[in-house]
């Protein structure tokens, strides 16, 4: 049995069309991510109830560690341990959110959308699809940077 790394798509000539479609549908595209986590890391992470709760909750809206702590019912330090590993694996994104008092909160957004495992022809193959960034979040970020 061989464990193949995720296949990299060849450069597609229809990329600009895809970009235009994404823009029209209110999405923004990410560039290709260089290094995906290996399968053992990925499966190890997903074999945790709180990790799955974190991924699900942050796929709906950006959330802080304190909010995630409430949602999962575990301490913030337990949340930080998990989000650090998720950020390292590139499954969630870390962002800062300015507050009116001059400080800022760190919030997390899920980037994992689909994880697919294919067993065929004597090989185990797997791919990760990441979400496109939300256009409303990008607008908020840009407006703050103006």
């Amino acid at each position, binding site marked *: 049995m061989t464990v193949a790394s995720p296949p990299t798509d060849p450069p597609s000539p229809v990329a600009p069309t895809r970009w235009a479609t994404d823009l029209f549908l*209110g999405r923004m595209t990410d560039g290709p991510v260089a290094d995906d986590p290996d399968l053992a890391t990925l499966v190890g992470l997903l074999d945790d109830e709180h990790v799955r709760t974190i991924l699900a909750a942050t796929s709906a*809206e*950006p959330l802080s560690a304190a909010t995630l702590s409430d949602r999962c019912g575990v301490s913030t330090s337990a949340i930080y341990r998990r989000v650090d590993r998720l950020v390292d694996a590139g499954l969630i994104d870390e962002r*800062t*959110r*300015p*507050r*009116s008092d*001059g*400080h*800022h909160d760190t*919030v997390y957004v899920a980037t994992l959308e689909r994880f697919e495992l294919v067993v065929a022809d004597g090989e185990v193959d797997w791919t990760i699809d990441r979400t496109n960034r*939300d*256009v*409303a*979040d990008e*607008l*908020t970020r840009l*407006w*703050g*940077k*103006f």
Partner: protein
Amino acid sequence: MVALGAAVDALAGAAATGSALVGLYIGYQAYRGLRRNDEPAMRYLAAGMIILFGVTYLLAVVGQGLIAFHVVSIDLQGVFRLLVRLLQLAGLGLIAYSLHLAAGSRVPGG
């Protein structure tokens, strides 16, 4: 030349509708940004965009309709124009305020 004039009027109307729709789309995304990120600056950006593009467009269309169907006198055309300009000013004022709010809430170097 009547046909050409009508075509130009129709195109101008379509372009006005188009900019109202795109402006409202940006306003809608700003509103989503407010809901998703609790960013107060986005409230004023959304309100400003909706007033600047949505409310003024609606007022202009309603005003033109009322005048065209002789519901109100043509003398009031100037009043409608003034109201549209005032609303544009208010919308831009809200966007400028939002810009300052966004700049003010940023952590220097953070």
